[in-house]
């Protein structure tokens, strides 16, 4: 008997973490991130899922547009007010490890402190693995703006996390 598995599960296991990271940046309230990702993913998968191939860029774009809509929505605000708000910093979006070193923590803190517009470009480039062109389309920006925000973000990280903070050699996972 042949075994089968829904393709979305493999897809979601591969991209879900990166998408959730982006959703956390886009959501006005941290509690909204999972709802945001779920809504965006379900909508896109219902449209494209039959092909078995869904470009992550589409989900990133849907997350962004939904986040903008939700921020404007009164209903959504009401739901949020009813929820217990939990503090959920960006560091909770990364794998935790006992071997987490000081430098990695400092890096994540620095990413968290980046201006939002630089942080989202950095996230899409580094963890979303999107091209500048895809990022420009996702965020409705020009290619030059995206490239310069990315450069500024890297420069800011470099300045705020000096080399002197060295980590352990094999402790990259957080």
């Amino acid at each position: 008997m042949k075994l089968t598995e829904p393709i979305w599960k493999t897809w979601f296991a591969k991209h879900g973490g990166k998408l959730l990271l982006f959703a956390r940046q886009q959501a006005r309230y941290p509690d909204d991130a999972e709802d945001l990702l779920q809504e965006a993913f379900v909508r896109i998968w219902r449209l494209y899922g039959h092909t078995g191939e869904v470009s992550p860029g589409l989900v990133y774009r849907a997350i962004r547009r939904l986040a903008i809509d939700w921020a404007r929505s009164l209903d959504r605000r009401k739901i949020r007010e009813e929820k217990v708000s939990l503090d959920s910093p960006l560091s909770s979006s990364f794998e935790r490890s006992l071997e987490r070193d000081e430098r990695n923590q400092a890096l994540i803190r620095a990413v968290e402190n980046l201006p939002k517009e630089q942080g989202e470009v950095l996230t899409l480039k580094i963890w979303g693995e999107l091209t500048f062109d895809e990022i420009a389309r996702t965020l409705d920006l020009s290619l030059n703006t995206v490239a310069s925000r990315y450069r500024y973000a890297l420069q800011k990280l470099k300045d705020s996390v000096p080399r002197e903070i060295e980590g352990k050699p094999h402790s990259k996972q957080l």
Partner: protein
Amino acid sequence: MSDLEELEKELAGLTPRGPSKDFSKRVENALGEAGSVAMRHLPDPETSGDSSLLVSSIHFWIPLGLAALLVLSLYFLNPFSSNLEDSYSSATFSLQPSSMVDDEDSPLHGVTTEQLEDLSGVPVDGWLDPLTQERLIRRIDEGIVDRATGLPARQYRYHFIDETLWTHPATETRVLSTTPRQEVYLIDLELY
């Protein structure tokens, strides 16, 4: 490697945490039937990888070998091949016009109205303006496609038959020409 490249590499080494089981379960419930439309086959644990590779490669080569054998046997066993070729070239192809003529007034492609008059005995003058009609045969929903801009659109393919009717009342001659035609329409979709 520059400092910034090193930093990029370092950042890429940080692994975003995957979705929790509870969250994946929630997504599964929200997806409903849409989640089981596309499935993938998992490797059968009872068969080893090597033997399945061998079987699939044999399945690949057998039809190819048979096809090659068939072509070779046709080539060597058909003694009439050269005669057939001669007879086709002299009997069939010599009847075809040496070059295609495009006469818009003629109801037949490749035949001028003068040639038609000679062959059919129908005078050149006296043809009425052709009547044209477009008939929709079917519409096919081809699903969602990506536009060049990356935005999704639903693609519909329409199959038409274009009919053109030439009438020559004096000789009570009618010529009906039908041409299949397809048109593709893209309807833009919102992402959500």
